[in-house]
C-alpha cells in the first residue's frame, strides 16, 4: 500500500496554514492514496433490493497523532459524525465498539498495523480507521476503508483544511464509501427543505440530510409552502401568501433575494427542470389550473398542460424530457406522465380514486406518490412506465409529501403517526422508517436537495 508520510502531510498543512488562502480557494485538499489492489467501481450493494441485509461496519476511535486535547476532541467529533452518517444510509450497520478486539487509535491505523483476523472474527465486513492531526486550527484527517475479509484497503484519503470543515471532510469520505458500495455518491452533504408551523405560520426551513443544523429561510408571517430546490442547490422556489395571493417565489439562497411571480389566481407547486434555470408550476390566470414552464427569472416560456380541469404538482424525470403531474381530467385526481416537448400525456395510476404528489426517482425508473384509500393517506411507489403499485407506509397516521434522496436510496415524507406532522425517512423499499428530527409545531413538505459534490 502506498502511504503518505507524515512529513508530506506537514508540508501540505504548512502550505495551507493561511486560513485566508483556504477560504479563497474554498476547497478541501484531498490526497488519495491508491489502494494496493485496484478496485473497480463494483457495487457491493443493490439498494433497490427489498431484502437488503445491512453490512456491519466497524468504526473504531480515530488516532490523535500529536494527542493534545483539542485534537482528541476533534477526532471524537469526526468519528461521531461518520458513525451517524453511515448509520443513516440504511444499508450499513455501525457495530458496537464494545466487541472490538484491537484499538487502531493506539496500535496504528494503516494496513500494515492492522490484524485483519481481529476484525473478521467479530463479523466486521468493513473497517474504517482514521487519524487526525490539528495545529492552530489546521486539520489533517487521514481516513481508510478496509475489507477485512479480503485484507485489502478499499479507499484511502487524506483531507486537509480548517477544523470547521471537519464535517464536510467526513461527508466526502462517506460519499466515497457510498460510491464504492452502491455506485452513487449518497446523501452526504445534501439538505432537506421543509415547512414548519413552529412560529405559528407555515414558513420554510432547511436542515442537513440527517435532520441537523435547522435554519429558517422565510419570515413572511403568512402561509408559505411547497419548497423546491434547483439542481445546483442555489435556488429555492416556493409559494407564499405574503402579499395576499398565493404567489410563486424564487429565492437565490446566496443573496437571499426573491423574484416574485404573481399572476391572478394560483401560482403554485414549483418544480425545477433538472440542470436548468427553469421551472414548471401551476398557474390559473386563464381560469383553468394548468402547468406552465417558466424561466428561473420568472417569465412564462410555454404551457405544458392544456386540458380543462385541475393540473398540479409537476415532477420532472431526471433527464427532464418527461414530467409526472396530478390531473383531475378523468374525474378523480390521478398521476399522469407528460412529455415536456410535445405536451402529450398518458395516465399512470389506475388503482384508487385519489392519487397525488408524484416524486420522480433519481434513477428515473420509479415514481413515489400519495394515495388516499378509505381516508387513510399513504405513500406508494409505481414504475415510471406503469405496473403494480407498491405500498410503502401503512397503518401509521397520514403519510404524505414523498421526496427522494439524491441517491434514490431513501424517501423523506411527512407523517402524523406521532400526532403532529413530522418529517420521517425510509428506504426506497419502505424499510427503516424513522423520525428525522423533532421540532416545534407541525412539519410538512420535505424536499431533498441534490447530491453532495454536484455543486
Amino acid at each position, binding site marked *: 500500500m502506498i502511504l503518505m508520510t507524515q512529513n508530506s502531510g506537514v508540508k501540505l498543512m504548512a502550505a495551507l496554514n493561511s486560513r485566508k488562502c483556504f477560504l479563497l480557494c474554498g476547497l478541501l485538499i484531498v490526497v488519495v492514496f491508491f489502494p494496493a489492489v485496484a478496485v473497480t467501481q463494483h457495487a457491493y450493494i443493490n439498494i433497490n433490493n427489498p431484502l437488503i441485509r445491512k453490512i456491519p461496519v466497524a468504526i473504531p476511535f480515530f488516532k490523535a497523532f500529536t494527542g493534545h486535547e483539542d485534537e482528541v476532541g476533534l477526532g471524537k467529533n469526526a468519528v461521531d459524525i461518520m458513525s451517524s452518517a453511515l448509520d443513516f444510509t440504511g444499508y450499513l450497520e455501525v457495530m458496537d465498539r464494545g466487541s472490538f478486539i484491537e484499538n487502531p487509535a493506539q496500535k496504528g491505523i494503516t494496513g500494515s498495523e492492522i490484524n485483519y483476523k481481529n476484525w473478521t472474527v467479530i463479523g466486521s465486513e468493513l473497517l474504517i480507521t482514521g487519524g487526525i492531526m490539528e495545529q492552530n486550527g489546521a486539520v489533517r484527517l487521514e481516513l481508510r476503508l478496509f475489507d477485512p475479509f479480503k485484507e485489502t484497503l478499499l479507499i484511502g484519503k487524506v483531507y486537509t483544511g480548517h477544523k470547521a470543515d471537519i464535517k464536510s471532510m467526513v461527508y466526502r469520505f462517506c460519499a466515497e464509501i457510498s460510491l464504492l458500495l452502491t455506485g452513487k455518491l449518497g446523501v452526504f452533504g445534501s439538505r432537506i427543505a421543509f415547512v414548519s408551523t413552529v412560529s405559528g405560520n407555515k414558513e420554510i426551513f432547511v436542515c442537513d440530510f440527517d435532520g441537523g443544523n435547522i435554519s429558517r429561510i422565510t419570515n413572511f408571517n403568512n402561509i408559505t409552502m411547497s419548497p423546491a430546490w434547483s439542481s445546483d442547490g442555489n435556488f429555492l422556489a416556493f409559494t407564499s401568501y405574503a402579499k*395576499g395571493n398565493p404567489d410563486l417565489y424564487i429565492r437565490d439562497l446566496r443573496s437571499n433575494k426573491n423574484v416574485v411571480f404573481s399572476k391572478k389566481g*394560483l401560482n*403554485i407547486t414549483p418544480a425545477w427542470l433538472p440542470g436548468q434555470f427553469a421551472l414548471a408550476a401551476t398557474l390559473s390566470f386563464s381560469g383553468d389550473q394548468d402547468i406552465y414552464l417558466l424561466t428561473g427569472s420568472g417569465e412564462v416560456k410555454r404551457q405544458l398542460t392544456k386540458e380543462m380541469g*385541475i393540473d*398540479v*404538482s409537476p415532477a420532472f424525470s431526471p433527464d427532464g424530457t418527461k414530467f409526472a403531474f396530478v390531473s383531475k381530467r378523468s374525474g378523480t*385526481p390521478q398521476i399522469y406522465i407528460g412529455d415536456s416537448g410535445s405536451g402529450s400525456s398518458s395516465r399512470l395510476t389506475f388503482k384508487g380514486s385519489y392519487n397525488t404528489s408524484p416524486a420522480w426517482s433519481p434513477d428515473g425508473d420509479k415514481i413515489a406518490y400519495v394515495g388516499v384509500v378509505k381516508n387513510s393517506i399513504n405513500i406508494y411507489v409505481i414504475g415510471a412506465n406503469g405496473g403494480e403499485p407498491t405500498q410503502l407506509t401503512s397503518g401509521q397516521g397520514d403519510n*404524505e409529501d414523498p421526496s427522494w434522496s439524491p441517491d434514490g436510496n431513501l424517501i423523506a415524507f411527512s407523517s402524523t403517526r406521532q400526532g403532529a406532522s413530522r418529517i420521517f425517512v425510509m428506504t426506497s423499499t419502505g424499510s427503516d422508517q424513522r423520525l428525522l428530527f423533532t421540532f416545534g409545531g407541525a412539519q410538512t413538505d420535505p424536499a431533498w436537495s441534490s447530491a453532495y459534490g454536484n455543486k
Partner: protein
Amino acid sequence: MGKKIVVRIMVLLFLSAMMLTVSCAKKSVETDPSAGIENQGSQDGLSAEEIARQKALEEERLREEAMRKAIAAERERFENQDIYFDFDSSELVPDARMLLKEKADFLTRNSGLTVTIEGHCDDRGTTEYNLALGERRAMSAKRYLQDLGIAEFRLNTISYGEERPVVQGNDESAWSRNRRAHFVIR
C-alpha cells in the same frame, strides 16, 4: 384687615348662592304637574308643528336603525353562511344554489359592495391539490353569482386549500364544514 374683608365677601357670596338654590327648588315644586306636554312645550317655546316634526324624525330614526340592523344582520348572514361541497368536488349542491340565490339577491340590493369568495377544503388529500380544488370551489360560486346577474368585477376569488379549516377534527362532521366557500365583503 384685608383678610377680614375677603372672608366677609366669601360669606356673602355663599349666602346669596344658598338663596338662589332655595328659590329654584321652590319654583320647580310650584310647577303644575297637570300642565301637560303642550304646556311644557309652549313653556320651552316649541310649536305643535315643531313637536310633530320631531316625532316624525324620531320615528324615522328608529325605522332607519331597524333597517340598519336588518342590513347588518343580512350582511352578517351573507358573510357567515358558507356554502358546502362534497368531498373532492367543486359542484354546487342544491342547498348551495339556494344560498347563492339569496346572496345574489343581497348583492343586487347592495350594488356598491364587492366580495371575495374564499375556497376551502378539508384536510384529507394533498395540500397542493387542495389549493386547486379550493380555487375551483370559489370559481363555481362566482360563476353561479355571475349567472344570476352579478357583475364579474364585484366578485374576487382566492383559494386557501386546506390551510384555514373552520373546524379542527378528524371526522366527517369536521371535514364537511371545512369543504366550503366563504364570502367576505370588502
